[in-house]
């Protein structure tokens, strides 16, 4: 059997794939954070909770309404995104003129509320969401076994990231968004409805998180706390990559997932801390982040 530094190739590739999957989630979440940060200038602390709500929407939709996975993949982000727009419209907008730290504190409070409420109804142990039938099984690639669902998650996440990049960099709406990031007052003067743009942006960022949540539902136990621990890692990813560029966020997310996977192979004790250590390294060597601009 082929060995890589004393580890069987199949095990090595398997962990790498797991890392890449985690990386896809980091990428989706940090992308949403970056989009929201760009226009609203706040860090959405409720992002993990939104990811969790996406997973729960899929789970409950299946349980009580018989909504299947594919419909959930579309409906959950719409639902959570709409919910996010309400939050933006009736809460975040009221504090938009203040120090942006207040936005962080407000969304933190919201995250506590969502998480705490669901813990009371569903406990913390987590429920299983079945893998859709079409995606059960997998492919034997010779050097490793590739489960079909994992391949799908990776592909779907990448497509959504690319779609987001295209939307922002290549469409008119995206141009408004980028201009609004640079100078919202000027945009407003040109007759663009900036407050509406802000609401839509927040809704879109949150919908991305919910989409990630639905993707994650068949992979990880669906529990109210699934978002918060993930979010802290995503924050570290964001510090590493900087929130300046879309592709930067995606690349950093995937890269950090890979590094985490590699650590799991060679030094499992450090697997859940390695990203924080990379963050420290980046802060020491390149304080603005890998893709960030010096402030």
């Amino acid at each position, binding site marked *: 059997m082929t060995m890589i530094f004393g580890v069987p190739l199949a095990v090595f590739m398997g962990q790498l794939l797991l890392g890449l999957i985690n990386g896809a989630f980091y990428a989706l979440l940090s992308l949403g954070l970056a989009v929201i*940060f760009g226009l609203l*200038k*706040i*860090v959405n602390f409720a992002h993990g909770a939104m990811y969790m709500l996406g997973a729960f929407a899929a789970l409950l939709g299946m349980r009580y309404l018989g909504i299947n996975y594919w419909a959930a993949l579309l409906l959950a982000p719409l639902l959570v995104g709409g919910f996010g727009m309400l939050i933006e419209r009736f*809460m975040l907008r*009221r*504090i938009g003129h*203040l120090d*942006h*730290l*207040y936005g*962080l*504190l*407000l969304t*933190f*409070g*919201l*995250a*506590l*509320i969502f*998480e*705490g*409420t669901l*813990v*009371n109804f569903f406990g913390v142990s987590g429920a299983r969401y079945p893998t859709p039938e079409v995606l059960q099984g997998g492919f034997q690639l010779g050097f490793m076994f590739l489960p079909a669902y994992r391949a799908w998650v990776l592909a779907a996440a990448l497509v959504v990231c690319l779609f987001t990049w295209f939307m922002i960099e290549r469409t008119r709406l995206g141009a408004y968004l980028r201009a609004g990031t640079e100078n919202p007052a000027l945009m407003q003067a040109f007759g663009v409805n900036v407050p509406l743009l802000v609401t839509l942006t927040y809704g879109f960022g949150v919908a991305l998180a919910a989409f990630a949540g639905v993707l994650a539902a068949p992979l990880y136990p669906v529990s109210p706390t699934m978002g*918060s621990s993930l979010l*802290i*890692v995503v*924050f*570290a990813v*964001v*510090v590493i990559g900087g929130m300046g560029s879309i592709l930067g966020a995606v690349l950093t997310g995937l890269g950090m997932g890979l590094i985490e996977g590699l650590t799991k192979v060679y030094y499992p*004790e450090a697997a*859940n*801390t390695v990203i*924080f*250590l990379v*963050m*420290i390294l980046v*802060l*020491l060597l390149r*304080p603005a982040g890998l893709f960030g601009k010096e*402030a």
Partner: protein
Amino acid sequence: MSTTQTLTPTMKRQRRANLRRNAFYLILIVVGMVAPFLAYPVFLMKVLCFALFACAFNLLLGYAGLLSFGHAAFLATGGYITGYLLASYPAMTPEMGIIAGTLAAVVLGAAFGALSIRRQGIYFAMVTLALAQLVYFAYVQSPFTGGEDGLHGVPRGELFGIISLRSNLAMYYFVFAVFLIGFAIIQRAVHSPYGQVLKAIRENEPRAVSLGYNVDAYKLVAFILSAGIAGLAGSTKTVVFQLASLTDAHWHMSGEVILMTLLGGVGTLFGPIMGAGIVVSLQHMLGQSPLGNWVSVILGVIFVVCVLSFRSGIVGEINKMYHKNFK
């Protein structure tokens, strides 16, 4: 010629403010001395520990304008080091354990501070949160903390090797003394020229830089001071409750201290104390009621309400009212 005539109006106002502050200190001390006869001392000690923790946090947010989302790490570090030393070395007296725990928090604070002040604003909050999570994982895995179980049965011991702290009343007065020392250090720092520069940095950092201040050094010192006093609070808490656990290191704890400060009033002297008192009482009362499971939801709601419509906090609002009506 009497001295009042030579005073400018600003000096007069300054003097009145000082007088008012001294009166407050006096009230604080008197209330603190009588309190154990009116309320359950163990509860009061918990309030005092968290009040000191919140004051330390407030030094950073209220006066330096730095929002740390990782202060739980210092509380826990103080607690674990003190707990470990007191439990493993019977010759250790409580004050030695507390000093060691505080120093450990200072060292950790220096490391955190040096890293996190390299980024500003929102990034600062994220960096401190991530670093604290790193510390949390380290404590989950390292053997000396007892992992998920935590440290239990830490002896209270004898203060200076003479005074037994076994009785809750003796313990209370010791905790009160520790609180006053920590509070005094913070007050001294805030009202010194150093504190003035800190406020200047908070208000306008580029300006402070152009005036020639080494902004990073000022921020770092504030961070270390805040971390050290948070560690002092954690160490003392461990001696009181004779245990140290992962709860103190969890990011929920970092959130709670923010809430205490916000609720009481960011950047006010007494706000954090009041905020800590309210949050601890609330947890205490809710814990025994049918609403016990809803504590974190209720804290979240308070958070949202505070940010949306109560940003100066209780003490801040009282100050505002006072200035409106009596000026």
